[in-house]
C-alpha cells in the first residue's frame, strides 16, 4: 500500500468516525454520572457497529447504577425493538414512561416505540392507541 493511499484511507476513516460521532451525540442529558455516560457511549458504539447483542450488557450495567433513569430504559427499548424482541421493547418503554416524570419528549418517544412494537406484533388497534398517546404528549 502506497503511503499516499494510506493517508487518504486514514483521512477517510477519520472523517467517517467524526461523521458517526455527529450522529451519536454523547447526550449531556443521559446522566450526570460519568460512569453511566461512559457505559451509554459504549452501548451506542456497539449499536453503531451492528453489535446489537453486545450492546445489552453495558446498558444493563448502566441500569444497575441508575435504575430510575428513563433514558437508559428507553435505550434498552429501542435496542429490543431493533432485535425484534417486541414484547420486551414494549415492557422497557413502559418502564421508561414510569420514570419519565414531566419529560414529554421522552414520553412521546416511548409511546411511539410501544406503537411500533405493537404494530410488529400485528396489534394494529393497540398500535394506533399508542401513536395517539405519542401525539397527545406532543400537544
Amino acid at each position, binding site marked *: 500500500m502506497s503511503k499516499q493511499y494510506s493517508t487518504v484511507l486514514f483521512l477517510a476513516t477519520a472523517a467517517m468516525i467524526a461523521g458517526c460521532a455527529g450522529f451519536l451525540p454523547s447526550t449531556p442529558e443521559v446522566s450526570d454520572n460519568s460512569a453511566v455516560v461512559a457505559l451509554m457511549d459504549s452501548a451506542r458504539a456497539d449499536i453503531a457497529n451492528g453489535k446489537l447483542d453486545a450492546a445489552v450488557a*453495558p446498558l444493563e*450495567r448502566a441500569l444497575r*447504577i441508575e435504575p430510575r433513569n428513563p433514558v437508559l430504559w428507553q435505550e434498552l427499548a429501542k435496542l429490543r425493538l431493533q432485535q425484534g424482541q417486541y414484547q420486551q421493547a414494549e*415492557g422497557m418503554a413502559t*418502564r421508561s414512561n414510569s420514570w419519565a416524570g414531566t419529560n414529554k419528549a421522552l414520553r412521546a418517544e416511548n409511546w411511539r416505540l410501544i406503537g411500533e412494537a405493537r404494530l410488529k406484533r400485528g396489534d394494529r388497534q393497540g398500535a394506533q392507541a399508542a401513536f395517539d398517546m405519542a401525539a397527545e404528549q406532543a400537544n
Partner: protein
Amino acid sequence: MDRALFEKFRNFVTRKRVRFTLLSLALLLSGFALYLDITVRAQFEGKRWAMPARVYARPLELYPGMKLRPEQLTMELAMLDYHVAADPQDPGSYRRRGDEFTMVTRPFTFWDEAQATLPLQADFDGGHLSTLTNRATGKPVTLARLDPVPIGGIYPAHNEDRVLVKFDEIPPHLVKGLVAIEDRQFYAHHGFSARGTARALVSILSGGGVQGGSTLTQQLVKNFFLTPERTLRRKFTEVMMSMLLELHYSKDEILEAYANEIYLGQDGNRAIHGLGLASHFYFDRPLSRLDLPQAALLVGLVKGPSYYDPRRHPARALARRNLVLQEMRKIDFVTQAQYVVARASPLGVAEKAPEGTSPYPAFIELVHRQLRRDYREEDLRSEGLQIFTTLDPLVQTSAERALTSRLTQLEKDRRIPPKALEGAVVVSHSQNGEVQALVGGRDTRFEGFNRALDAARPVGSLMKPVIYLTALEQPDSYTLATLLDDSPLVWRERGTSDWEPQNYDKEFHGQIPLRIALANSNNVSTARLGLALGVRRIMDNARRLGVERDLNAYASSLLGADSLSPLEVTQMYQTFASGGFLVPLRAIREVLMADGQPLQRYPLSVEQVIEPGPAYLVTHGLQAVVREGTADALKKYLSPDLHLAGKTGTTNDLRDSWFAGYTGDRLAVVWIGRDDNQPVNMTGAGGAMTVWGEMMARLDPDPLVPPTPENIEWSWIDSATGLRADGNCQGAVELPFIRGSAPMETAPCAAHSPARSLKNWFERLFE
C-alpha cells in the same frame, strides 16, 4: 540321515524357533503397548475433560459518587484475598489508610470485555467513593471493576467430589514446589528417570521391593490405575505407561492431571484428591489464591498426608513445609526475601475443615436450578463453564449476620431452646430482579435443606396486599379512604367447617378506613373485603403478580392459609416493589465457555402486569404499615425518612413469622419458624421484621420514592368519615387517588370548623 544333515536341520529349526519366538514376543509386546496406550489415553482424557462449572459473585463496580463505605471495600478485598502491602505493586494487593485506598486490581476477562490490571487510588468521603484515580497516569477513572469473588462450583454428584483446576489456575510457586521436591527432572525426562528406575530395579532384585524413584508422571500413572503392589512387572507397566503419556501429552497437561489426581488427605470417609479440593479443605479458599507458604505446605503433604496432617501434627507439618521452602530456595525458585517471609509465616490452615467448598451453598443451589432449565446436568459438571451470578457478597454477609445474630437473641429473649429457631432470607434488587443474597438457614454453610427455596409455609398476612390491590384496581368502588366493615363474620362454605376470622387483638373495630385496615393488618375487615371481591379472583391476581404455584380458593386462603417459599414470596412482592412490573428473579447474568467465549446471557426482562395507579396506591398502603401500622417498630432500626414499604405476616398459633419489605433499592423477604413446625411464639413484627431491620440498617438503604403515575391526584380526607376535608380538619390526611375517584362529599368538619375560617382568613390576606 547323516549326522551333519541332522545338525543342519536342527540348527534350522532352532533358528526358526528363536526367530518365531522373537517375532511373537515383539508382536505380543506391541500388542501390550497398544493396549496400554489405549487404556492410558482413555483414562487421561476422561479425567481431563471433566471440568465443573465455576461460579462467580457479581464483580464490584467502582465509580466516583457510588454508595460504598470504606469497610465494605475492605471486606470485598478480603473476600478476594487481596493481600495488604506497604506499597502495592502486584495485582491483588492493596493498602488502606483511613479513607484512602491504594490497590492494584487483578486482570480479568468479563463477559463484555477484558480488563487489564489497574493501579487505583480510591478515596472515600463518608459513605461514598469520592474519587477514583489511575495511579500510573494520574488521570481520573470513570468506572472500574474488581475481579469477581469465586463462590463455588458445580461438581460431579458421586462421592468422590473434586475441585478440578486448570493448569493456569495453579499458582506458579506450587508448580515449582512440586518440581523441586518430587521430580526435579520433570521438564527434561520422558516419563521416567533412568537413575530412579535403575535404583528401583536394584532394590527389587535384592529383595527390597520397589521403592521411590518415581517421576511425577509415574506417580500419576500409579494413581490412575495401579494397586500398590511392588513387582518387576508392575514397574515395567508403569514405566511403559508413563512413556506413552509423555508421548501424547505436554508437560503442562500431565501436571494438570497430576494436580487433580494426587491424594492429599482424609476427611472421615471422604478422600481428599486433587490440589483444588485440598486447598478448600485445608485453607478454605480456592487454589489460585494460595500464597507461597500455603502452596509449600500442600507440596509437602504429597509425601504423607496423614503423617504431616497440619491439623493433627502442626509441628511436623511446619517442618515439612519449611523443608520444601528450603529446597525451592536452593534451586533459586524463590528469592531469599520470599523465603525468609514464607518461612516465618504461620501454617495458615483453617481451624476446621469447612463444610463443602462454597461459602454460599444455598445461593449456588438457586443458580444450579436456574441453569438446569437450559443445560444438561453432565455439561454443567464437566464443560468447565464460567457462571457469572448476581450474588452480592456484601449483602449476603449482612443477611447472614442479621439472621444468625437475631435468632440467637430471640431465643434468649423468649426462652426458646438454643438452635430451635430456623430462618431464611432472600434479597433482590428492587428494579431489575437480581437476587443479591439468599440464606437457606442459620447454618449458612450447610449444603442440605434450603429453606429459602424449599420451605413452603403459610404466608399469613403477606397475602393481604393482593386483596387490597384487587380492590384498588376498581377505583369506582374502592380507594384508600373507603370505610370497611370490621364487624364479626361467620363464613359458611359447603364441605368446610365454619370460618370465623378474628383480629389479632381479638376485638372488632366497626367501620375502618381501608388503608388503616391494611396498616394494622385487620383480619376481619380484610376477609370481608376479599369475600366481596371473590376469592378466586384474588388468587388469580397472586398468580398475575408472579406466583407460579397453584393456590387454593378457600375463604381462609384470603388470610394466607396457602403455603409459599420465601423465594416465591419475593417474586410476588417484586411486582409491588417495581411499580406493577413483573420482573423475573434472576441469579445468573452470563455464562461463558471454559475458554472465555460468551455462551449465554440472562437478560433483564420487564412486563407491566398491573396498572401504575393501583400499584402506586398499594405501595402507599405498605408505607403506612411501616409509618403507623404493624411494622412501626422498624424505626428502631431505620429512619422514618426512608418511607419504607413492608408487610408483616403471622400465621395460626404463631408458627411462622414473616416480613416482606422494600426500600428504594432493595426488596427483602425474611421468614422465621421451626423445622418441626412448632409455634415460635412471635409475630412477624416481633421476629422476621427485626432481622429485616438489622440487615437493612447495615446496607444504607435508598429512600423509597416511587414515581407518581400521571393519573394520581391528592386530596385531603377526614379519616373518621372517609369524606373530603382540608388540611385543617382534625385528623385529616392527604391521600393519593386515581383521578376522579376521590370522594366528592365534604366532611362536616371541613366546612364549618373554626380552623377552616381561620385558614380562609389567612388565605384572603395573602391573595
